[in-house]
C-alpha cells in the first residue's frame, strides 16, 4: 500500500488556477516520474505547489491512496483519466475533477467546482459538499457526457447536472439547479430534492425527482401514478420534441402556465 500526501503550499497569486492532471494513483507507481503542473502560463514542479510525502510501495494503482490537504479549490483536473486507486480531497476541489475517469474512487470532503466527472466512464466519485454546474456532463459540443460509473453528491448540484448523460448514474441528495439531464440519452439521474426543467430534449434514460420539479416542460406526457420504493410518483414519457423514449418520475411538479 502506498500513501501519498499532497499538502498545498501557501501561494503567491492564490487565485490563479493550477492544472494538475498528473495527480492520479497510477502515475505515482513510477518512482522516476517527473510531475509537472501548470499555474497560468508557467510550468512548475509538483513540489512548487505541494509538500509531497510518499510512504510505502505499490504494484498497481489500486494500492495507491492520494490525500490532498489544504486549499485545493483552484486546482483543476485532479484525477483526470484515473483508472484505479483512491484520491481523498480534504477540502474543496477545482474544476474538471475526475474527467474521463474509468475506475477507482475520488472522495471530496468539501465542495466540487464545475464539470465534476466530465465524460466519466467508470469508477465512483463521492462529493460530500455541493457540486457546481455540469456535474457528469459532456464537453462543449460533445454528444455524450458521462457514460458509466457513479457520481454521488451529498449536497446540492448547480445547473446542467448530467447534461448529455449517456450512461452510469448520478445521485444528488440535495437540490439540483436548472435543466438537470438536458439532452440526456441514457443512464439514470436521481434528484432527492427539487430542480427546475428536468430533461429537456430527452432521448432516452431515466430521471427521478423526489422533490418538486418546477417549470416542468409541457412536452412530456403524463402516464399516471406509480411507486418507487413505496413513494408515490407520477410517470412521464418524453421528450416529444423528439421520439419520447425517456422516462421521468416526479413526486411533485409545477408548470409555467
Amino acid at each position, binding site marked *: 500500500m502506498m500513501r501519498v500526501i499532497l499538502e498545498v503550499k501557501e501561494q503567491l497569486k492564490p*487565485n490563479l488556477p493550477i492544472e494538475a492532471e498528473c495527480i492520479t494513483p497510477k502515475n505515482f507507481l513510477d518512482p522516476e516520474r517527473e510531475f509537472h503542473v*501548470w499555474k497560468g*502560463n508557467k510550468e512548475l514542479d509538483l513540489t512548487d505547489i505541494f509538500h509531497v510525502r510518499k510512504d510505502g510501495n505499490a504494484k498497481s494503482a489500486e494500492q495507491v491512496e492520494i490525500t490532498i490537504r489544504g486549499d485545493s479549490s483552484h486546482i483543476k483536473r485532479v484525477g483526470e483519466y484515473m483508472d484505479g486507486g483512491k484520491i481523498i480531497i480534504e477540502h474543496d476541489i477545482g474544476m474538471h475533477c475526475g474527467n474521463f475517469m474509468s475506475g477507482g474512487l475520488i472522495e471530496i470532503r468539501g465542495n466540487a467546482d464545475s464539470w465534476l466527472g466530465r465524460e466519466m466512464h467508470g469508477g465512483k466519485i463521492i462529493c460530500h459538499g455541493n457540486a457546481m454546474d*455540469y456535474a457528469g456532463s459532456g464537453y462543449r459540443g460533445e454528444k455524450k457526457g458521462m457514460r458509466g460509473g457513479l457520481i454521488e453528491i451529498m449536497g446540492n448540484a448547480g445547473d446542467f447536472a448530467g447534461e448529455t448523460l449517456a450512461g452510469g448514474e448520478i445521485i444528488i441528495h440535495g437540490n439540483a439547479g436548472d435543466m438537470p439531464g438536458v439532452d440526456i440519452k441514457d443512464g439514470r439521474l436521481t434528484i432527492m430534492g427539487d430542480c427546475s*426543467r428536468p430533461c429537456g430534449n430527452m432521448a432516452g434514460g431515466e430521471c427521478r425527482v423526489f422533490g418538486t420539479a418546477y417549470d416542468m416542460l409541457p412536452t*412530456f406526457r403524463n402516464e399516471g401514478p406509480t411507486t418507487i420504493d413505496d413513494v408515490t410518483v407520477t410517470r412521464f414519457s418524453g421528450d416529444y*420534441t423528439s421520439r419520447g423514449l425517456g422516462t421521468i418520475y416526479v413526486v411533485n411538479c409545477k408548470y409555467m402556465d
Partner: protein
Amino acid sequence: MQEIKDMVCPFCGCLCDDVTLEIENGEIVATDNCCAIGNAKFLGKNRLKNPIKKVDGKWVDITYDEAIDTAVDILLDADRPLLFGWSGTHGEAQCVGVHMNEILGGVIDSTTSVCHGPSILAIQEVGHPGCTLGQVKNRADLIIYWGCNPIEAHPRHMSRYTTYADGYFLDNAFRNRKVIVVDVRETETSNVADEFIRIKPGGDYAVLSSLRAILRGKGDMIPDSVAGVTKTQLIQVAEMCKTCKFGALFFGVGLTMAKGKYKNVRNAIEFVDDLNRHTKFTLTPMRGHWNVYGANEVMSWMTGYPYAVDFCRGVAFYNPGETTAVDILARKECDACMIVGSDPAAHFPHSCVEQLRDIPMIVIDPFQTMTTTLADLQIPVAVTGIDAEGTAYRMDGVPLKVKKAIDSDYPSDTEILTRIYDIMLEVKGL
C-alpha cells in the same frame, strides 16, 4: 465640402454599406442613409489626444513609444494575462491579437461571451441552418424576431433586409411578408408585428419545445397555456411557419441570455431544423457590435475556436464558463488585462469590474470610456471606418472592407498591436 458614398457604418452588426459622408476641413460634418446611432458614432467627439498613464493615482500624458514599452512590460510580467474586447476593431488587428496571445500564453476572448456566446455553443452542438441577409431580403415571406428589438438596436435591419425592404422574388413584399415578434415585453418592434407572442421571462425553452411537439403532431399533451402563450396561438404560429415559402428566424440576447441560455438557442435551431422538413427556414443571430462576428471568424481560423481561447499551456483550450472573460474576472483568475475596442466597465457585473480595477490594465481605444477610469494605461487609436480601414464581418458572416473617410495622425489598432507584438518577439528571442 466633399461627399463620399458607399461607406460602411462601424456601429452594429448590420454593417450598412450605403452610407454617405460629408467631409469639411478633414472632419465628418454630416451623414446620409445612416441611422441615428450610426450617425452619432461618425460625428463622435471625446477622443483621447495622446496616450495616458496613471502614476500615483494621477493621469500623465506620455508618448506612444513610452506607452508601448509600458504595455509590453505589463503583459510579459503576467502569469495569466487576459486580452479582451476585439469586437470594436478590424480583422487585421484581431489577427495580431491572436498571435500575441499565443506567445504570451494568455487568454483571448471577445465580447461574444456576453452576447451570442450561447448561440455559438448551440451551433457547435447541432449546426447552423443559416443564409445571407440578401437571401432573406429577396426570398423570405415570414420573419421571426425572437428576443430582439431591431428598431432600437439594429435600426436599419427591417428597412434593408426584412419588413420594409423589396424582395426580388416576392410580390408586394411589404404587404405579403409576415412578421412574428416573440418577446417578454411590448417593444417598438412588436408594435409593427403581424403576430406578437408574449412570453413570460424564462419561458422561451418551453415555448420552443411546444412548437416542436406541435410540428411533430404531438400537440395533444400541450396544456392550454405555456409560459403565458395560449395553445391556440402556438398552433396558429406553427401553421404560419409550416406553410410559408421561406422563413427566417432572427434572435437576440433576449433568447441567448435568458434562463437556459445556449439550450434555448439549441432548441431554436432544432425548431428550424424541424421546419425544414416542411419548407425552407433559416436562423441568424442578431450580432450586436459591428465586428464581433469577425472576432469569431479570426479566432476560429487561427486557433480552431471562436472565442474564449486559453493559450496558457501553449496550445489552444476552449471552454466557455471557464475560459470566458466574465468567469475569469469574477473568479480573479487573471493577473493583467488588455482591453481592445470595448468598454467592459460599463457592461460587466460588479465582481468583474472590481478585478479589472485591482490588476494592471491596458486599454486600446479611441475614446474615453468607463473602462478608462479603471485603467493604468490608455493608448488612443484611429477609428475603423473614419480614419482607419480594415475588414469586418456582417452578422450573416459576409466580410466587408471598411474604408476610411479621412486621414489623421492616430495610429490604427493594427499598428499599435504590431509594435507591441514585435517588441515581445524581440524580448522572447523569437
